[in-house]
């Protein structure tokens, strides 16, 4: 079907634009990038994608036969490298490793990464649009205290389990014990090395008497 990639791109574009519309920092970033185009070429799977920025978001298009001169920046990568890049790996490192090729205005790529990954959604304002200010605020407060409680509980659980395993049930050695053990093992290792050297010397001496005067 010729239309399924188009459908997927349309869905992706809509989602990204909806997210960008809720990010207070996006309009100023987009205004700087408006009118510019990035051509993204994946090697495996073979795929060309044009990202066109405009003040209200971005357009995604398949690039069937777009010349490189038509765009502001060309990015060539494979899917794995793209994953690394989106995961926050430094662009320079990937470029020096030869995994990523960028031509044209390279800063546009960094701006794109900032735009899409520094998304700071004002979801409380979004909730307020649906529920009204006060219910949204109390709901958001509730969610926040729930998440704080979750974090604290997780830390406490970890500490309790650690204490039980190391101190009470003694199923595993604690860190101090582990370090003492390692020191002892190092001493034993050194002692055996010395012993080995001494034995080697004795063996040499026993082999030598005939030659000695």
């Amino acid at each position: 079907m010729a239309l399924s990639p188009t459908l997927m791109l349309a869905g992706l574009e809509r989602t990204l634009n909806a997210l960008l519309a809720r990010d207070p920092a996006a309009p100023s970033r987009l205004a700087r990038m408006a009118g510019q185009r990035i051509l993204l070429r994946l090697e495996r799977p073979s795929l060309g994608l044009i990202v066109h920025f405009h003040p209200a978001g971005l357009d995604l298009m398949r690039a069937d036969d777009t010349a490189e001169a038509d765009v502001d920046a060309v990015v060539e990568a494979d899917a794995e490298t793209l994953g690394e890049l989106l995961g926050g790996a430094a662009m320079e490192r990937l470029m020096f490793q030869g995994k990523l090729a960028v031509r044209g205005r390279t800063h546009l790529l960094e701006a794109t990464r900032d735009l899409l990954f520094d998304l700071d959604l004002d979801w409380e304002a979004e909730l307020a649009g649906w529920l009204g200010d006060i219910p949204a605020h109390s709901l958001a407060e509730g969610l926040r205290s729930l998440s704080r409680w979750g974090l604290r509980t997780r830390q406490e659980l970890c500490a309790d389990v650690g204490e039980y395993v190391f101190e009470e049930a003694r199923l595993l050695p604690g860190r101090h014990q582990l370090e003492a053990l390692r020191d002892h093992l190092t001493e034993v290792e050194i002692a055996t090395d010395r012993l080995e050297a001494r034995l080697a010397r004795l063996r040499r001496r026993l082999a030598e008497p005939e030659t000695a005067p």
Partner: protein
Amino acid sequence: MSASDKHTTHFGYQDVPVEEKASRVADVFHSVAARYDVMNDLMSMGIHRLWKRLTIERSGVRPGHSVLDIAGGTGDLTAKFSRMVGPRGRVVLADINASMLRVGRDKLIDNGVNANVDYVQANAECLPFPDNSFDCITIAFGLRNVTDKEAALRSMTRVLKPGGRLLVLEFSKPNNPLFSKVYDEYSFRLLPKIGELVANDGDSYRYLAESIRMHPDQETLRTMMEEAGLERVEYTNLTGGVVALHRGIKL
């Protein structure tokens, strides 16, 4: 072509005098203009957005280009082209029908699309533009309603710049016989019903279904485009051939 063909042309399944077709098509669109977008979504179940999206992808339009959107109707393509050509480019929305053009202009202005768009009421058969003036011309679901399609294609080729592209998005012939049957049932029975219920105008939508059947199929249209002087003409069937996107380049 026999002598009688010269004086009549098809209007759906009816034969009407050549000079009458334009005004009858105009009546159809005057009556549907207000609900055109809603009906498009309903009738195609939203797929028309994807068809148009693909047209835009294939157009290869970039910042600074000038684009002519013929029979642009309510401006779906124009809105996106306007963004793509940027402040240095230009988009002309042309339609033969004043009602459609008015609806389109209002919609575009409401959506903040204004700076680089011009509106022209024009007949596709004799476009009021100088030769070699556009990088891309699109006609989406409009060629079907033109009285003299050959003249329209020639006229579009004339105003296209060398290297420019003409994209024709139009209903066509489904290639699977079973699917074709389903499609016939849908367009002759269900479609006029929907038209009657939503737009209160069954006849216009009956005309729509009939005019689709009278429109040349993929290969015929391709030959017509080649005869008009376009080269490298190719087409893509969409949704099983219900719609085909033809693309030709003026060299």
